[in-house]
């Protein structure tokens, strides 16, 4: 057994190396969550539209992204974006685009289940009072679907936050990278990785406790 020495951890180190990474990880999570839910909802509506081409296009999008590992998707986008727009966007921006596009596929499956959980009578009632399809979705179906699926959407967001560590593949500076750089600079990589695991655990565990509480609240009202 070797001795672990956490003496290198101090406030200075946290503000210098780790804070920057945490900010990016949170940023990436929030942008990908909002963008992913918006695109995902559109994809879910396409899949439930009953129009053959829309259904096929959305199903192709979702199934393709869901069958490839996220690391490969990150590498794909990092390779393709510069080829398509002619210049490099940098690892951070590339990661934000990748995660938004990728998570949309997962959020869309959740939203699809949510929309299907709203009873048909609600839609018919909407049409009966003269609403258009758009109004019906906007005012009746989507608010309920969103609410029913809120715990699942948030759980997916916790997974998303964990997955942001995979930007390691293209070298973006996220929370994990912050720990790694700090560990290298102070020649204490073992302690740095261990501390990273603790920090991720504390964040994700607290968030999942919050989601569980919310779930109980929603369950009672329903």
């Amino acid at each position, binding site marked *: 057994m070797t001795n672990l020495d956490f003496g290198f951890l101090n406030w200075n180190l946290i503000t210098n190396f780790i804070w920057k990474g945490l900010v990016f990880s949170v940023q990436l999570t929030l942008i990908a969550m909002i963008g992913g839910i918006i695109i995902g909802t559109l994809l879910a509506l396409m899949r439930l539209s009953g129009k053959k081409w829309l259904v096929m296009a959305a199903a192709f999008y979702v199934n393709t992204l869901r*069958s490839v*590992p996220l*690391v*490969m998707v990150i590498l794909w986008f990092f390779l393709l974006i510069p080829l398509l727009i002619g210049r490099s966007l940098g690892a951070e921006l590339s990661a934000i685009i990748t995660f938004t596009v990728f998570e949309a596929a997962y959020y869309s499956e959740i939203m699809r289940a949510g929309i299907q959980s709203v009873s048909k009578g609600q839609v018919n009632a909407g049409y009966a009072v003269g609403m258009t399809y758009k109004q019906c979705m906007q005012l009746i179906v989507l608010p309920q679907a969103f609410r029913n699926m809120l715990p699942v959407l948030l759980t997916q967001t916790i997974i998303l936050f964990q997955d942001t560590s995979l930007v*390691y593949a293209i070298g973006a500076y996220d929370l994990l990278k912050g720990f790694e750089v700090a560990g290298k600079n102070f020649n204490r990589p073992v302690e740095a*990785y261990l501390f990273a695991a603790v920090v991720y655990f504390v964040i994700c565990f607290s968030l*999942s406790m919050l989601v569980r509480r919310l779930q109980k609240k929603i369950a009672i009202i329903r």
Partner: protein
Amino acid sequence: MAFDFSVFCKETIGGEAVPSCLGRKGDPTYLDWLISAWGWTLSVAVLSLIVALVVGSLMGILRTTPSKWLVAIGECWTELFRNIPLLVQLFVWYHVLPAIFLSLRSVPSFLLVVFGLGFFTSARIAEQVKAGIQTLPKGQRYAGLAMGLTLPQTYRYVLMPMAFRIVIPPLTSESMNIIKNSSVAFAVSIAELTFFAQQAAEETSRGIEIYLAVSFLYFISAFAINRIALQIEHRVAVPGMVGAGK
């Protein structure tokens, strides 16, 4: 933009094209490397899946026992392995544990990854197994105990045969996830598909062709697992249950 898949016939060291595409005697070609990388991906995935199924079932069962302590152990296990990103867990297995426990230094990193990915997935499987046992009517457990079976016997002969059949569909998707998650092993230098993709793309600057081949192999691996699981599901179906077919 034209695809040029002839890159796979090139030797990895000399860069010369080999007519048969497989380097028989000389240096291996990129195709050889791709195939061996696929082998690594499948070995990591299959071995981790075995670890995950064994440990995950055990932890799932613990969480449904009447003993408070066993439940607590199962829950701590699940929370611990569920709330740390897989990549960070692999770093802990690869960098941290061998530094603390020196005897782990002689263990090949491949095995560390298998346990890392296996334990990570076991938390998810424990959730499914627990849910599967809980969907069974309480009467089944009581019937078993009333007949004089011990608790382990009740689990072995009454509860688990049904619970495992119930959880096959979610376990199928976990098995497909494990193929995808094995890609994270690139970060600890296991020569699997993603590692190959990164290295070979850099060496040949034929990224698109290489990524296409790798993505395709991931796709068919996950698809194959899906088919195998469907076969198992049909074979073990209990007549009269929902999903037992016609």
